[in-house]
Each structure stands twice: as C-alpha cells, then as structure tokens.
C-alpha cells in the first residue's frame, strides 16, 4: 500500500467516522401521532355536583430530542379539539360549542415547546420545566409546564409488535393547570358552576424510526 492509497483510506475512514458521529449526535425527531390510541390528555374541572372529567386522544406533533442534550428539546404537540370527550353527551356538546371551546372555528389546541430549564437527567429519565406557547381557542399564552421525558432506546419494535422495526421511543408526561379565563373560555362567568382552573394531565409517546 503506497502513501497516497493510505491517505485516501484514512480520509475515507475519517469521513465515515464523522458521519457516524454526526448521525449519533444529531437530535432525533419523534412523531407523536399514535396509531395505538394510547396517547392521551385528561382534563378535570371542579363543579358542585360532580367534577367534569374528560379525555382526548387526537394527538399529533413532533418533538426534536437529543439524548445527549435533553435540555435542547423543542417541538410542537397538537391536540384535535374535536377528540375531547366527556361521559355526558350533552356536556360534551356544550364543551365543543361556540360558547366554550368553539371547535368548529378553532379545531386544534397546540403547545409549542420553546425552552427547557431546571433540566435534570438520571439514566433515561429527564425532568425539566418547559416554557412554551399554549394556544387554546385561538389565544396564545406563555406557560411553564413541568415535564418528565423518558427516552426508550430501541423500543419501537416491541411497541409495534414487529422486531424488524427499528427505532426509539420518547415518553412525555406533564401535569399542569391553566385558567379558562386566560383563553377566553367564558371568562369570569359560571364560576359557581364550573371552576376557573382546568387540570391537565398529558401522557404521550413519540416514535423515531430508524432506516
């Protein structure tokens, strides 16, 4: 092997190594559209006779997550407002009507993660406070949400029951509270019947398939 060939081989090896390192270091894009219907948001509003509780499963969105730098996580989660369901159908109709969420005019509720603070990582689990923009009924407010992120490497195949499918999972959990008045949902009205505060609990998993 002459010197020129050796140099070319070294350059090629370096290029491959750099490409591999870049591939490992690059943030992964997790898609939160869940065909299994497991991803869910639960909400609760206190009311005199019985708390109003409901669920929503129409979740989509993408989050960019780097296992080496969880603090750099960004992305957007979108909830189909029509998927909000409560046990009482009349109550559900009211909830989706123009008096409350007006889902015909504002079909989505979105949360855009802008930055993370107080990031603590232990093993595959990260906790942080996400500052983001929450848009409900067309009104966008900045909110701070405590979240936990769990990175599950190589678990996508197990989740879809197909070992041939390669990829990672990211589980995101958050519990927080918003005021309906902040988002123009009957501000200052019916406070004796339905609380101002809406408790939200988010449990979602995103998938980042590998080729």
């Amino acid at each position, binding site marked *: 092997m002459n010197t020129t060939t050796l140099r070319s081989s070294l350059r090629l090896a370096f290029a491959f190594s750099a490409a591999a390192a870049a591939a490992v270091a690059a943030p992964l894009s997790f898609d939160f559209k869940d065909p299994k219907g497991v991803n869910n948001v639960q909400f609760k509003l206190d009311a005199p*006779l019985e708390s109003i509780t409901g669920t929503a499963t129409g979740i989509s969105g993408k989050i960019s997550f780097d296992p080496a730098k969880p603090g750099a996580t960004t992305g957007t989660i979108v909830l189909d407002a029509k998927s909000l*369901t409560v046990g*009482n159908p009349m109550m559900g109709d009211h909830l989706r009507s123009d008096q409350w969420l007006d889902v015909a005019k504002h079909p989505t509720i979105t949360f855009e993660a802008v930055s993370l603070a107080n990031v603590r990582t232990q093993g595959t689990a990260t906790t942080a406070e996400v500052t983001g923009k929450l848009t409900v009924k067309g009104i966008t407010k900045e909110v701070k949400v405590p979240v936990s992120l769990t990175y599950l490497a190589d678990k996508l195949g197990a989740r879809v029951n197909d070992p041939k499918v390669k990829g990672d999972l990211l589980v995101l959990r958050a519990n927080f509270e918003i005021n309906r008045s902040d988002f123009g949902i009957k501000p200052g009205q019916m406070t004796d019947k339905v609380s101002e505060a809406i408790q939200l609990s988010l449990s979602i998993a995103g998938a980042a398939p590998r080729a």
Partner: protein
Amino acid sequence: MQNRSRLNLALRGTAAAVLLAGLGTWVATGAHRGWTQTSAVTMQKDEITGIDYPVRRDAFVAGVEIPLAAAGLAAVLAGVSLISRRRSAAGLTPAPQN
C-alpha cells in the same frame, strides 16, 4: 263517579310505577351521584411505555336527574289524583239545606 275513582287509582298507580322505575334504574346502574353518563372509562397500561390510558366504552349510568325527574313526575301525577279526588268528594257532598 266510578270512572273518576278508577282514574284516580290509575294516576296513583302510575305515579308509584314512575317513582319506582326512576329509583330502580338509578340504583341498578350504580347509584351514581353525578350526572347521567352514556360512556364509562376504564384505565389500562401500555406495557412498553408505561402510559396509563383511558379506554372508553358505551355504558348507561343513570345520574341523579333520573330519580329526581321521576320523583317530580310522580308528584305531579299524585297531585292530579288528589285534586281529582277532592273534586269528586266535593261533588258527592250534598249542599247545605236552610
């Protein structure tokens, strides 16, 4: 007169049946102390992600408005029966003779 008596009896019987049906439905579906629900949620756990997720199924769970509405309707029927009985009693009483 006999017809009116039969009507009163039927009204009271219907009132009792409505009240019992309302209470019975409420108790039979779990005596739920909130509003009527047409679906119920059970929580399940996704084994891989550990996420608890709701599974909603159709289920009729009578709320407190069912026995309350039944009681209201029964009260109206019983009231009509009482008024009818008083009227027939008033019709039977002979007018005072001077």
